[in-house]
C-alpha cells in the first residue's frame, strides 16, 4: 500500500493534570476521508489542532506525506500547514471583515490572488457552496448559523488545499441544511481530490461524509474501520456511542 497522506504515531497531549490525548495512532490514505467520532471533550478538536500546529503535542509524531512535521523548522512547518484547510467548530469567521474578504483571505495572504480580482474570486467560491453574491458584502454577524458554516466552508476550500479538516461541520444545523453541508463537503473533497478528516457527532452525517471512521475514547483510537460499518462494528464502545445508549462501557463522570 502506498504511503498514507497523514500518519499520527503515539500522539500525546495533556493540559496540566488532564490527559486528553494518550497515544493516538491514526492513518489517512491520500484522497480518502476519515470521520472521527467520540464523546464531547474526548479531544477531537485538540487532535486536529495538534496536526495544524496550533497546539504543540507532548509526544508522538505527525507525518504528512511521510515527513515528520514536528521535526521541521518553523518556516518549513508553516509551508506544510499551508496545505491544510480548516473548518473550525464555531466557524471562526473574521467578524471585522465582510464575507467576501473572509473567503478570499488565504489566497490574498499567500499573494496568489490580486486584490482587484478578489471579489469575483470570492463570488465564485461562494456560489459553489450555494451562497448568493449579494451576501458577499455582509459581515459574518449578519448571517444565520447555517450560512456562517457555509461561508466557513468556502473559506476553508478557497485555497484548494490538499488536506481538509472539518470540525463538526453540521452541528447545530437543521437536518436538511446539515445534509446539504454534508453533500458540499463530499463534493469539495471529490472535486479537489483532497484528503479529509471530519469530526462529527451525527452518525448519519458520519456515514455520508466518511470512507473510513475512527472512534476516539479516553485519549486513544479504540476502533477504526469502514464508515459503513459504524452501526455493526462489533465494538461495544462504538456500538453504545452510535446507538446512543445510556448503558454500556462508556460511563459519564457524573455516574461514578
Amino acid at each position, binding site marked *: 500500500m502506498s504511503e498514507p497522506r497523514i500518519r499520527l504515531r503515539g500522539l500525546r497531549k495533556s493540559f496540566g493534570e488532564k490527559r486528553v490525548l494518550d497515544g493516538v495512532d491514526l492513518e489517512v490514505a491520500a484522497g480518502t476521508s476519515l470521520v472521527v467520532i467520540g464523546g464531547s471533550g474526548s479531544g477531537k478538536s485538540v487532535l486536529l489542532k495538534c496536526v*495544524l500546529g496550533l497546539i504543540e503535542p507532548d509526544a508522538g509524531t505527525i507525518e504528512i506525506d511521510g515527513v515528520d512535521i514536528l521535526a521541521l523548522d518553523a518556516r518549513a512547518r508553516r509551508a506544510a500547514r499551508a496545505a491544510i484547510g480548516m473548518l473550525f467548530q*464555531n466557524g471562526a*469567521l*473574521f467578524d*471585522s471583515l465582510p464575507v467576501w474578504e473572509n473567503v478570499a483571505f488565504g489566497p490574498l495572504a499567500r499573494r496568489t490572488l490580486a486584490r482587484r480580482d478578489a471579489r469575483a474570486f470570492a463570488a465564485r467560491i461562494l456560489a459553489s457552496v450555494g451562497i448568493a453574491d449579494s451576501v458577499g458584502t455582509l459581515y459574518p454577524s449578519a448571517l444565520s448559523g447555517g450560512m456562517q458554516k457555509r461561508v466557513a466552508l468556502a473559506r476553508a476550500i478557497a485555497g484548494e488545499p490538499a488536506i481538509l479538516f472539518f470540525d463538526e461541520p453540521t452541528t447545530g444545523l437543521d437536518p436538511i441544511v446539515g445534509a446539504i453541508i454534508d453533500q458540499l463537503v463530499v463534493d469539495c473533497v471529490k472535486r479537489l481530490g483532497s484528503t479529509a478528516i471530519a469530526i462529527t457527532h451525527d452518525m448519519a452525517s458520519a456515514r455520508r461524509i466518511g470512507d473510513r471512521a475512527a472512534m476516539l475514547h479516553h485519549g486513544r483510537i479504540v476502533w477504526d474501520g469502514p464508515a459503513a460499518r459504524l452501526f455493526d462494528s462489533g465494538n461495544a464502545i462504538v456500538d453504545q456511542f452510535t446507538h446512543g445508549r445510556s448503558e454500556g462501557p462508556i460511563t459519564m463522570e457524573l455516574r461514578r
Partner: protein
Amino acid sequence: MLDLLAAVGRGVIGACRATGAASLFGLEGLLGILRPPLQPRLFGRAFVEFAYFSLPVVALTAIFTGMVLALQSFTGFARFNAEGAVANVVVLSITRELGPVLAGLMVAGRVGAAMAAELGTMRVTDQIDALATLSTDPMKYLVAPRLAAGIIALPLLVVVADILGVMGGFLVGTVSLGFSVPTYLHNTFTFMQTGDVVSGLIKAAVFGFVIALMGCYHGYHSRGGAEGVGSATTAAVVSASILILALDYLLTQIFFVR
C-alpha cells in the same frame, strides 16, 4: 512562615515570568513592524481607532487640567507672592508631565481596553487560530500594526493635549486671574524650551507602545470565553496604567536628573 515565603516567591517568579513573556511578545511585535511587507491598510485602521476616537477625551482632559493647574498654582503661589510664575508652571507641567501621563492614562482606559477585548474575542472564537491556518502570522497581522499605531498616535495626541492644556491655563489666567494677554503669553513662551516638549513626546511614544502592548498581550493570551475576555480587558488597563506611571518616573529621571 514558610508558606508565606513560598507564596511571596511564587508571586515574584510569576511576575518575572509575565514580564519576560510580555517583553518577548513586544519584541516580536516590533520585529513584525519592520519585517516586510508593510501593512498600510491595517496600520491605518489601527491608527484611526487609536488616535481619532481618543481625541475628544484627551482634549477635554487637557483643557480642564490646564485650567485647574492655573488656578491651583495661582492660589498656592500667592502665599509666596510668586503669582507671576503661573504661566511657567502651567506650560512646564503640561508639556513635560501631565500631557503625556494624563493622555496616556485616558487612552489606556479607552484604547487599551478595546484592543484587549477585540483580540481576546478573536482568541476565544478561534479567529487567531484561523489566521494561522490561512498563512497569516497573527503577530504581524494583528499586533504589529497596533504597536506602530500606538507609538505614532499618542505623541500626536499629546501635541494636541499640550496646546489645549496651555490654552486652558491661558483662559483661566487672563479671564479670571487678571493676567494681561501679552504678559501671560510672554511668560509662557520665554520659559518653554524645546527639550520640555520633546521629552514629553518621547514619553508619549513609550506610553503609546505600552498601551498597545498591554492591550494586545492580554487579549492575545486570554482564555475561557467571555469571562476570560473581561479579565483580559481589566488586566490590560491596570497593567498599562501602572507601567505608565512607573516608566514616567524612570524617563523623568533619565531626561532631567544628571
